[in-house]
């Protein structure tokens, strides 16, 4: 029975898993490309930190189904479901990455930053030699939170036809077939766990040496 189910749906599960990974991965790249530079900029202009983080916060409170719905009628975005999904997931991923980049750099021992300035490091040298290496594990922790959240939210993207493992879940719910629901939910959970574990390892790798 189980073997029969897997031989029937195995190929589709694999395909949808890859699609799921692609949606989440693309969103993570976009979110990191926006939120890490934005977080760095906020450390340079801290008076903007509150309002900008508040906006990212509000984005995150929008219910995910509503978010996908809001994006549906937009011109270029609405044409392709995958675009909607990636934009929505990016929006959700911004806050944890932004917040951790900002807090990670602001949390560096002020004496270290002061000496970096006093030794005559340029702004860029200070960022790349001192601040980013010391904040890296923090930034990765934000990326990890964002990824785990988005792997989960990406299942809802199937509601607008963007595919991913949510498709099996929605079909299973519609046809009252628990096996189909699990066929979507279990790989999604495993993906989340794998992302959590993998990024967690990377995070520890970047931890600056201390006692």
């Amino acid at each position, binding site marked *: 029975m189980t073997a029969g189910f897997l031989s029937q749906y195995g190929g589709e599960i694999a395909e949808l898993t890859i699609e799921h990974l692609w949606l989440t991965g693309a969103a993570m790249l976009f979110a990191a490309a926006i939120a890490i530079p934005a977080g760095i900029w906020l450390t340079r202009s801290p008076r903007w930190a509150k309002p900008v983080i508040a906006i990212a916060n509000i984005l995150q409170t929008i219910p995910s189904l509503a978010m996908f719905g809001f994006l549906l009628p937009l011109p270029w975005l609405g044409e392709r479901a995958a675009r909607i999904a990636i934009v929505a997931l990016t929006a959700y991923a911004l806050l944890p990455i932004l917040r951790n980049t900002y807090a990670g750099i602001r949390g560096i*021992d002020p*004496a*270290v*930053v*002061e*000496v*970096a*300035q*006093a*030794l*005559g*490091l*340029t702004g860029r*040298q200070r960022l790349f*030699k*001192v601040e980013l*290496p*010391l904040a890296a594990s923090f930034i990765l922790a934000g990326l990890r939170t964002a990824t785990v959240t988005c792997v989960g939210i990406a299942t809802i993207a199937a509601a607008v036809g963007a595919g991913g493992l949510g498709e099996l879940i929605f079909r299973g719910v519609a046809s009252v077939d628990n096996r189909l629901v699990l066929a979507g939910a279990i790989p999604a959970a495993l993906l989340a766990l794998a992302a959590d574990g993998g990024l967690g390892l990377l995070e520890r790798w970047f931890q*600056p*040496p*201390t*006692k």
Partner: protein
Amino acid sequence: MSAAIEFRELSFVTPQGRVLLDKISLALEDGTTTAILGRSGSGKTTLLRTVNRMVEPSGGEVLVHGESTRAANLIALRRGIGYVIQETGLFPHFTVERNVGLVPEIEGAPRAGRVQRSHDLLATVGLDPASFARRYPHQLSGGQRQRVGLARALAAEPGILLMDEPFGALDPLTRAEMQDMLRRLLARLKKTVLLVTHDLDEALYLADRIVLLSEGRLVTDLAASEFLHAPQSEVQSYIRAFHRGERSAEEGIAASSASTGGEN
């Protein structure tokens, strides 16, 4: 003799309107050590930090080697001035060797030369490169960290060293060792040093001149040998405050030997 650092009517007022430095004029001769004494909040650290423009003065100017720091290129100015602070500010993710060699590194010095220079500097500050070069800051004691901080400040061969309470967090014995090391090093290297300290003994031991600040004003600027005999009441109360414990202990001995008098 030419002045390596000159303060001209230098003032600093906080955005809240508090006057931290009030028209300080002072010249530090090339190759000499000047200690700045004063209470916490007297403006010592602020004065020191105007030299490498970590603080921008509100009025007056600072000349370094005869040129106004206002006109200078900020990065070049800072690389030509060593900076040592009590908290050390060592980069926790770099080895001792890389901490010391960071300024040569960003100036593009080849790796082999940098490593050699770091090792030489570590030896200069009394750390054996063979056992310390590859360690990380958290694996060092407070005194060792301070030595690394000093080696790093010397790496770009600056003519000027700014030292803000460099040994303030160390126990008295370690502090004395560090003072000995610094004194020998300065006798050899001939740097112009501006040393902020609370410690009168440290000032007397290391400095050629002693400056006393009080509430942002310059009270005295004297040769170290004249400082103890300066007539100003601020100077005398500073000296009295510093030697209280010693005097009290001696008076205690005197009192107890008086009360048990006649024994010998």
